[in-house]
């Protein structure tokens, strides 16, 4: 769906030096949206077209309030496109494609573990909300560079959810010092002993949803497979059309038969089953 999202909130998110922004758009795109989906925004003044930069920018849904017809986007100013986006004024209308792609799946029951690296936390918030409202036990493992980053990237909001938080930072300035995967591994081992599968009979059915740097999601997937815990990952790739028409954004999966196949991150994803993703490919 192509719509005009009206900017209702556009503000700095956390410390300025983290270059994060919070953008709330009002529009019909909120109605059908699901956690894990994204929108493709035209990062130019829609009233006067400029073709530099040319392409839309994909941004995940960080919050969805279909009742108010609002979606919240959290983004980092990375380069020119997001820099231009950051200038959008309240009241301005942005050309938005979406909601796009396939989001996270919500388990019926049991525990949902969210594993985030850096700004990979953003799309997980929408998931946490819907899981929470559905009465699932939600647990967050979140790793960031340091305290300042975690606080800037929305820690308070997460604390407000009243769920278990397992935080870690590279410099130890907040939570555990180290990588987020260590926290996940520790917790899993605690439950069932080192690298043994969570018994089918176990009263806790755990599912993992992860978003962050590829290397980190790869590690999380590996871990989950060892423990036979279902895991979903949210992939990122350069996009052209964002609707599955250009094959610009493919990722590689291994199908049942063990053959390597390509899927479109924009249409078949961005969320995929971690077990299927082939991380180190050059084809």
């Amino acid at each position, binding site marked *: *769906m*192509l719509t005009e999202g009206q900017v209702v909130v556009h503000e700095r998110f956390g410390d300025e030096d983290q270059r994060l922004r919070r953008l709330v758009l009002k529009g019909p795109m909120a109605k059908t949206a699901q956690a894990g989906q994204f929108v493709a925004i*035209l990062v130019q003044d829609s009233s006067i*077209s400029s*073709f*530099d*930069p*040319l*392409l*839309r920018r994909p941004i995940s849904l960080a919050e969805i309030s279909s009742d108010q017809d609002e979606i919240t986007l959290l983004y980092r100013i990375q380069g020119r496109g997001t820099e231009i986006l950051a200038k959008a004024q309240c009241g301005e209308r942005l*050309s938005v*494609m979406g909601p796009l792609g396939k989001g996270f799946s919500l388990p019926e029951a049991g525990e949902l573990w969210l594993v985030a690296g850096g700004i990979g936390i953003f799309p997980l918030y929408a998931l946490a909300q819907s899981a929470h409202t559905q009465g699932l036990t939600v647990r967050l493992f979140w790793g960031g560079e340091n305290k300042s980053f975690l606080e800037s990237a929305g820690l308070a909001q997460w604390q407000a959810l009243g769920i278990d938080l397992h935080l870690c930072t590279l410099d130890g300035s907040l939570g555990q010092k180290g990588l987020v995967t260590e926290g996940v591994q520790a917790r899993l081992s605690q439950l069932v002993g080192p690298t043994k599968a969570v018994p089918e009979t176990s009263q806790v059915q755990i599912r993992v949803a992860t978003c962050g740097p590829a290397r980190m999601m790869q590690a999380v997937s590996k871990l989950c497979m060892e423990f036979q815990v279902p895991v979903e990952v949210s992939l990122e*790739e*350069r*996009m*052209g*059309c*964002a*609707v*599955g*028409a*250009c*094959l*610009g*954004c*493919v*990722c590689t999966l291994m199908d049942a038969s063990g053959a*390597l196949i*390509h899927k479109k991150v924009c*249409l078949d994803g961005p969320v995929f089953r971690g077990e299927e993703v082939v991380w180190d*490919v*050059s*084809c």
Partner: protein
Amino acid sequence: MYPVDLTTHIAGMTLRNPVLTSSGTYGFGEEYAAYCPVEALGGITLKGITPLARLGNPVPRLAETPAGLLNSVGLENPGLEEFLKSYLPKVRKLPTAVIANISGFSLEDYVQMASALQQDSGLAALEVNISCPNVKHGGMHFGTDPKSAEEVIAAVKAVTDLPIIAKLSPNVTDIVGMAQAVQRGGANALSLINTLLGMRIDLDRQRPVLANTFGGLSGPAIRPVAVRMVWQVSQAVDLPIIGMGGITTWQDAVEFLLAGATAVSIGTGNFVNPQAPLEIIQGINDYCEKNGLTSVRELIGLAQKVLNS
């Protein structure tokens, strides 16, 4: 539907309007359904297919450039057999002219695909891509040597009863010579232009942005080159031309028609504005009205007539 007659005749096809969508940018015709109903389009051109399935090039496959896009998809496609089995049955039902696009790495490749695609396939025409610059010795060779271009078109022409549209590469010294060659080969129409070969380098990683190093440059940046080639070729050969290269607005489309194109095709422009084709059809119609033209066909090559009058 429109006060102006937008009907366009090209290579034996009758299109409801002169606006098509370009191969490789419009998937197999369904991806953009939510944004642009295909029945509104003059036609669509499908993603290029090859005899065997191809995974294409590694990612990153896309890189943005000033007013342009580099792509190195590398002709990823399901292959002829799978196309016939799983795609053709669907696309032939689409309520618009459907043009298949074929690429190959040998004369035999092209012949094999052309033989399998006839009138009864329900396709409107066959666009022969002899110009895809992404694949090592891919179409390139055919697309830059007049003799082989003529041969491949003649060979394809001999084995199918579908109209043949030769899609030319702009990466040549003499585009007119290439056009004349495929005309000799029996092409019924021309598609101008495919992408310009280009590349970008990542300053942080100090290596090419595209995993494939090179990619095809498309988008508004190449429009002046495309318009020039349409202008030159339309004067030299008497085949209808489907003009493409950077068309994003209706003004861009009209520019191609004035230059000598019989129809236009939208590629990268769809990525910027998925409703571009609709706005362009409307814009062409309004431009004709404003200029007191009753048929879009009066626009074809008008700038040449004005200049020579």
